[in-house]
């Protein structure tokens, strides 16, 4: 079969020819500033993925997203606020239960910078708002959607997370955090854990 150039192939061919010339304009593919850290402010915005034990459900893994804002006070201390949403759905013989956990935390952290990275310990105190949806197993088959229930709850909660951050390039930082989590549900202290993976922007 004869090779016939298409518009896409032409563009690819053009890129293959031109791009190396652009990259090597100064003779190097990466220059000294490619991974330079340009953060100079004391404010950081971060977002990422979150995995945690559910705040009020005894089984399952709650997954979702998290975001936060942090202000460094020029020393080893920083403070801010964080919010996350995660969801989990688990089933038993009679119920399929979904919990949406909305975590709101005021956080304070101590950090130590090592090179372009930093380690820290972050304490978060706040509330976890839980929205519960329970579907009665086989209820729909029985024509009984009235058996399903929904409920809200606000649980006092506390997280203690170890932080690891590495400046990648410019104002961008890769973050990972993990640690135990505590909340009070049904009058009892519940323990779990929370882990996050994300990026921060520190202009």
């Amino acid at each position, binding site marked *: 079969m004869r090779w016939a150039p298409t518009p896409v192939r032409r563009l690819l061919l053009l890129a293959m020819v031109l791009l190396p010339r652009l990259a090597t304009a100064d003779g190097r593919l990466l220059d000294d500033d490619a991974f330079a850290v340009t953060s100079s402010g004391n404010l950081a915005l971060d977002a990422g993925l979150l995995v945690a034990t559910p705040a009020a459900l005894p089984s399952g893994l709650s997954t979702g997203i998290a975001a936060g804002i942090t202000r460094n006070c020029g020393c080893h201390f920083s403070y801010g606020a964080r919010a996350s949403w995660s969801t989990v759905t688990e089933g038993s013989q009679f119920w399929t239960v979904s919990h949406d956990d909305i975590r709101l935390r*005021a956080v304070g952290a101590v950090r130590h910078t090592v090179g372009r990275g930093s380690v820290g310990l972050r304490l978060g105190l706040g509330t976890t708002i839980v929205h519960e949806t329970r579907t009665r197993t086989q209820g729909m088959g029985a024509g009984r959607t009235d058996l399903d229930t929904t409920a809200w709850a606000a649980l006092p909660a506390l997280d203690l997370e170890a932080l690891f951050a590495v400046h990648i390039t410019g104002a961008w930082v890769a973050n990972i955090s993990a640690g135990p989590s505590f909340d009070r549900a049904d009058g009892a202290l519940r323990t779990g854990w929370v882990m996050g993976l994300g990026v921060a922007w520190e202009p």
Partner: protein
Amino acid sequence: MGAVIRLATITLVTALVSLSGCGDLQGFGGPVPPLVSFSVTATGDLGAVRPPDDTGTPDLHAALVWGRQWLVEPICILPPENADAAAVIAAGCRDPLGFVPARVAANVPIELGVPASLELFTLPAADVLVGDLTARVGYASIVIYDDKDGDGTLSLGRPNRPQQMGPPDTTPTQSSDVVYSASFVTMTAPDLRVAFRQGAFIPSGFYPRAGCSDPPVAFSVLGAGGFSVADALAATLAGTLPQEDPATCTNQDPSAAAFTLAVQPPAPLAELRCTERSTDSSVRYREPDTDPPDLTNRTMACVHSPSFGTPSDVIELVISGRSDDSCVGLTHYVLKGCRETPTCGTPDWDHSLAPPTWWPC
């Protein structure tokens, strides 16, 4: 900086508010509501209908029993060819149009004159529904019984047949529970049944209600006036379903229905505690062994193999269950044949030239 502080402050305030632990999450806990419940009341004088030898304290229960798809053996509906056959049929055939239990789904203790709630927490399993995935239906009878064995459930027995090929049937052959009433005993009498429908409804010979409206989707309580055996046979020969009198048909939502069941003498209801094998409804034939089967308290007859067409020249030995069995049933032996039929082309066994010494036919 001020915004960060305000956000953190608001979050802390919500945490303090949530210390009160507001909310009513239940997770997997909390009470489990039944999918459906039925109001059942047993009425009448139990002392007047109890067998004289039953002197114990009655422990009445109500049970919801799903029905099995079952087909009667031809010998039970064809005219008996001799007196022995008539005796075997009387001893070994159940009501050909009777309700056949498949599974007990729910039980509740009950007192005479006091309504009880019979609750179902699961849908009926597919094995008690008849039809395919898009159109299937199941029917149940509400049974009032004396829980003689004290296990809290209606114990089902099965016909006491000699050991057969295949895996052993673990269903016991005896049931000591005594049935005193049921909402659905037979198709030849008025009945009130629980129905569960999934998908469409296709009329079939599974406890038919031709002439009545289709059961609604999900649970319902249906009533019908019944039809005669003669009507059923005539309709079967014509390839149709026996018709119910539309005036006797009822269709109620379970929340509006009430089962009021008067206790009756238990003898005519004894088969309501008897299930049948689940393989299919066809007759299984057995090879006569060298040793005779235990014929104690059993009735037997030598008959031509029952046929709706040309009379068969195959002679078979039909043996009823024991007179003290809980459930009636028949066992068929042929000297030559196969498990499924005595007239198979290549018989699995052939003792026609040298029958066992005990062979009576």
